[in-house]
């Protein structure tokens, strides 16, 4: 009997079943752009807790803060990318002191993922020097001095950005096959390949699950961001990046504003949670469609 290649197709629950309390999880995308929201929603309604999250943050971090899952966060920023810009649940977690912040320059996140991807303990970077980033890290972040003096005899001392090693990475790509080859179709790959390269377990959700042949014919070769070596499980999650945008659909600005409005009051948040968060992904997508129809009707 011929050996059969691994089919990595999985459910959201199978992915969450592999996660443990206290893990460090990297979340791909950027702000409110192509976030693996189906995986984030599944994690938020699971029993997993005490997480460390590494992210270019948006409502992914907000929803995990709302669910009380986050103990520590490593991030370059947290933004919803459109008004009112600041995520309400991240803000709440910060102003109540509920999470430890390891805030850093945006370029330091990329640098730390690159160090992890290359199995290096650190990479030098200028960004962070002179700023409060070093104080945010409370002694965890150190500097390194070059063994090579500059031409004028002075020597550069730089931030030694530690590797951001991840137990798991979540990413959302627009189109993929069942073995973990995947492509983006929008304008920006963000850092999704780096998140996967920095992680022990790599979880991909995708809008379109197709054959390898269809995948490679659908996009120029340069868009094939992930290959099989960097993916462990593939979840077919149409519209999974909602309410952030992905290659084939825009950001749901109205729903994102509704998320922010709902966070302002315990009663409205309870209603939002009951309808959109304490439900499986299929129900979420159905309720979002119903909500959109309600908005149309009330216009």
């Amino acid at each position, binding site marked *: 009997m011929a050996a059969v290649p691994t089919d990595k197709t999985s459910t959201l629950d199978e992915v969450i079943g592999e996660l443990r309390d206290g893990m460090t999880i990297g979340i791909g995308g*950027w702000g409110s752009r192509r976030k693996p929201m189906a995986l984030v929603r599944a994690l938020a309604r699971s029993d997993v807790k005490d997480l460390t999250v590494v992210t270019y*943050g948006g409502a992914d971090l907000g929803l995990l803060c709302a669910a009380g899952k986050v103990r520590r966060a490593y*991030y*370059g*920023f*947290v*933004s919803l990318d459109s008004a009112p*810009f*600041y995520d309400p649940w*991240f*803000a709440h977690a*910060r*102003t*109540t*002191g509920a999470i*430890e*912040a390891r*805030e*850093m*320059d*945006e*370029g*330091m996140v*990329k640098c730390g993922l690159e160090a992890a991807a290359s199995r290096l303990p650190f990479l030098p*970077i*200028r*960004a*962070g*020097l*002179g*700023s*409060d*980033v070093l*104080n*945010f890290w409370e002694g965890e972040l150190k500097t390194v001095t070059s063994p090579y003096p*500059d031409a*004028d005899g*002075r*020597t*550069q*001392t*730089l931030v030694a950005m530690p590797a951001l090693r991840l137990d798991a990475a979540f990413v959302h790509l627009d189109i993929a096959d069942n073995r973990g080859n995947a492509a983006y179709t929008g*304008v*920006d*790959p*963000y*850092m999704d390949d780096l998140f996967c390269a920095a992680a022990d377990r790599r979880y991909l959700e995708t809008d379109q699950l197709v054959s390898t042949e269809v995948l490679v014919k659908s996009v120029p070769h340069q868009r094939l961001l992930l290959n099989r070596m960097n993916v462990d499980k593939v979840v077919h999650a149409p519209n999974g990046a909602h309410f952030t945008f992905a290659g084939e659909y825009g950001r749901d600005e109205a729903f994102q504003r509704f998320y922010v409005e709902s966070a302002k009051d315990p009663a409205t948040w309870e209603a939002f949670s009951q309808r959109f968060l304490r439900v499986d992904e299929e129900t979420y997508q159905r309720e979002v469609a119903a909500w959109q129809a309600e908005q149309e009707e009330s216009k």
Partner: protein
Amino acid sequence: MTTTESTTEVTRAEICVVACAEIFSGAGEIMASPMAPMALLGARLARLTSEPDLLITDGEALILADTPAIGRSGPIEGWMPFRKVFDVVASGRRHVVMGANQIDRYGNQNLSAFGPLQQPTRQMFGVRGAPGNTINHPTSYWVGRHSTRVFTDSVDIVSGIGYDKVDPENPAFDDHNIHRVITNLGVFDFGGPDHTMRALSLHPGVEAAEVAENTSFEVAGLESAGVTRQPTAEELSIIREVLDPKGVRNREVR
């Protein structure tokens, strides 16, 4: 000739656009990265007048070949996804104009949060790219409402680094350059004693006392500062007819 007539009709917002354009005087072939509408209008005005080699993007991932009106796109000339922006930052070939919740007299800037680092009283964006921007390449700031809340004695969180953070023994700081601060009241730099904030010019109609009242610290050169120059007829028509026909600039400054 209607030069005199049109000069009297020039608005504060138009003065600010021109002041923002002058941030890029002599910048050459670098990426102009304005983070607010006023600074964006300035960068595009510079590109259409004295600085044709500036690179500008759509704010997402595309480098624009032409110089469209604010909010509009157009033909492109290249690709600049976020990860490549960090390569540009590290290369130094960039001039960013950021906003600021706070700026102190040495040019330290905060857009992260107010209050203690681990339990702020108000959360904003986090430090974003401010630490990397300020240590790698020219940085300027645009402040639409010049007040003592913004221009404060000390910032709560240093995201953009000021001159008192520079270690002259460490060459990693050599490219730190806070070029200009443009506000609704005037044009400033950090050419005062010990690299403190200095007034270069006040906008027409702005008195030194108004700037002093709205700044927590003493501003160097305030009494001797001249008047910000008027737009040329060409600049005015570009601002009004080409770049900002809908008057977005007036939402930033009256």
